[in-house]
């Protein structure tokens, strides 16, 4: 405790020098915390926007097997609703979706898109989240009504009330074309919003040649977005009690980078009659988002180490000078009975305190910087994918920050280690004789 006190006193004696050294550490820590948190926030926003596009972050679907061919077609919505009730999972939205890929054609102009077939009466949250800039919900009374994004409407030159064609494949893989009437044009919340096209699920099913009550998947928007995988495993366990279900954990084990492929392989290999259920999370569908985040964290750790190698040279040189400055003081301490190890420890503690204070300042500045940045509204379409309503958001990862703090402390200690050893080895008589 005495050693720590001495180390702290030494640092506060040379305020200017400590400020400069701590400032260098703070700068390094600020950079990596800022990059990490912003990348985390951006990827979360991207993930949430995609989840919104697909109607949720957890998907439940049923597959059937006919002559080794796997088809995905879900009919028993009641069973899924019972499973959700039993799980007690909290979610903000739920819905049945049929989603078809194809090309919208209007007067020679084309746009490749997905059309989401929804039940607007039941999906209140979806209805609330769609902000119409043209047309109205009354127009949705037409069975073939379609809502498209304003960017798409502008690109195709369409207005409300006009009819477009949608070229697609049926369930039996035959080419087909459907006619849709533009009921409304919605405001694009982001670049992704521009490809959000909605229609009535019943009409989309008819075009795809599905039964009216069938759908591709049942989706929920779980409140705990970060723990989708835990919730998915929980749902899987409940389904397993009543019906055959694929094994998500086995898919993760077999194919950690492509969980959906792992589940599809299970469906291909398994034999069953009737429905085989699968529970998939949004992160399973787009594992790259998690991968990008890990890559960003590794890169920022690399940047931190590179920055600190430069900072270490500065710290190391400064402490060599410090030893020279304090040589008589060290000699006196040693002459008064301070042991070799203790003399060295004072320097090591100085390094620890310097790195802790520097990192704390860097962390606080990074949070302040992010708070200030999040106050600005950005309208760039390219950036919109990563923003939340036009604002940058950030996610602080305690694990990642702790690792970086440990790295900073260790590197600073490494930089001071040489000087600490030199101080410990000083002969008290020689030190006292030294003149500056």
């Amino acid at each position, binding site marked *: 405790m005495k050693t720590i006190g001495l180390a702290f006193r030494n640092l506060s004696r040379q305020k200017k020098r400590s400020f400069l050294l701590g400032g260098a550490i703070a700068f390094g820590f600020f950079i990596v915390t800022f990059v990490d948190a912003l990348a985390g926030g951006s990827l979360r926003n991207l993930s949430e926007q995609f989840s919104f596009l697909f109607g949720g972050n957890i998907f439940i679907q049923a597959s059937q097997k006919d002559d080794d061919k796997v088809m995905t077609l879900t009919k028993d919505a009641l069973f899924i609703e019972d499973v959700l009730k039993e799980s007690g999972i909290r979610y903000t939205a739920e819905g049945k979706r049929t989603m078809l890929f194809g090309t919208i054609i209007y007067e020679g102009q084309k746009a490749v898109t997905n059309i989401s077939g929804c039940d607007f009466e039941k999906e209140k949250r979806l209805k609330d989240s769609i902000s119409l800039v043209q047309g109205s919900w009354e127009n949705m009374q037409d069975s073939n009504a379609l809502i498209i994004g304003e960017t798409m409407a502008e690109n195709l030159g369409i207005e409300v009330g006009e009819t477009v*064609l949608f070229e697609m494949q049926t369930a039996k893989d035959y080419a*087909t074309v459907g006619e849709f009437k533009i009921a409304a044009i919605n405001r694009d919340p982001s670049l992704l919003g521009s490809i959000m096209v909605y229609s009535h699920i019943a009409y989309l099913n008819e075009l795809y040649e599905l039964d009216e009550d069938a759908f591709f998947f049942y989706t929920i928007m779980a409140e705990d977005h970060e723990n989708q995988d835990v919730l998915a495993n929980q749902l899987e366990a409940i389904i397993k009690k009543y019906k055959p279900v694929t094994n998500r954990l086995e898919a993760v084990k077999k194919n950690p980078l492509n969980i959906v492929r792992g589940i599809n392989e299970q469906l291909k290999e398994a034999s069953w009659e009737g429905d085989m259920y699968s529970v998939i999370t949004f992160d399973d569908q787009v594992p790259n988002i998690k991968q990008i985040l890990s890559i960003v964290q590794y890169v920022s750790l690399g940047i931190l180490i590179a920055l600190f190698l430069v900072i270490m040279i500065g710290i190391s040189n400064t402490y060599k000078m410090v030893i020279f400055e304090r040589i008589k003081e060290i000699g006196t301490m040693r002459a008064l009975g301070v042991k070799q190890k203790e003399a060295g420890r004072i320097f090591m503690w100085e390094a620890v305190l310097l790195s802790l204070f520097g990192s704390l300042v860097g962390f606080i500045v990074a949070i302040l910087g992010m708070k200030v940045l999040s106050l600005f509204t950005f309208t760039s379409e390219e950036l919109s994918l990563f923003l939340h309503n036009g604002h940058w958001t950030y996610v602080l990862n305690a694990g990642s920050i702790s690792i970086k703090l440990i790295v900073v402390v260790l590197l600073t200690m490494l930089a001071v280690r040489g000087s600490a050893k030199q101080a410990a080895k000083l002969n008290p008589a020689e030190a006292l004789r030294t003149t500056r």
Partner: protein
Amino acid sequence: MRKNMKKIIFIVLSIFLLFSVMAENTPDPYAILDVLQKQYSYDDQDYSATVTLIVEKPNQPAEQLQFKLFQRAAKKQFTMIQLLPETDKGAGYLQDGDNLWYYDPIGRKFNHTSLKQNIGNSDAKAGDVVKEYSFRDDYEATSIESGKLGAFDVWIISLKAISSRPAYAKEVYYIRKDITLLLKEENYSANDKLMRTNLYPKYTKVLDRYLPIQIIMRDEVNKGEQTQQILSEISTSAIPNKVFTKAYLEGLN
């Protein structure tokens, strides 16, 4: 009573005769389709040709795609190598049994694809070029009627797809009566929308069979778009086995 009996027998015989005459005039559609299928099925030998696709779209210059096709129908194998445009040279399709791949020479990757996919930006599908379906197994003939197409007397046969192999749910064929040649084909969606019309104006004789060397595929959904498929350098010489391998496509680049 006897008089009435005679009347009934007369009416029954008349109806029978009428139906017999009608039946004689309206042949079995499958019999016509079988002949048609034989025209372009080279199950007994290898077949190769140069396939040129001229893609026309409104307000755009015509685009030309060219492929060399090698087919061994007996083994459900074909290789189609892109020759034009220069930028896509070396790309191609390879079918071996039920597997069909598209080869990307830049990424040097084979990706699974389907015979129903359009070739490049054209209205032609790989399935149009290799014609692997069977009228008897993949379609149900729903009607046959006599008609006229230009100067030709034709049989108009309506077909409904019964397997997942055809690209369209319904098709109508206009087949010449004097020589069994397909003159026109209409492709419909399941909801009866006309999606594509194919015209067959030119044929050539290869090994006593008629082969369409020009097909005009008119896109009825995207009005004004059409693709002309022209066959040239047709040959039935034996093709080396190595041509139907992935290594062959990879080795070309």
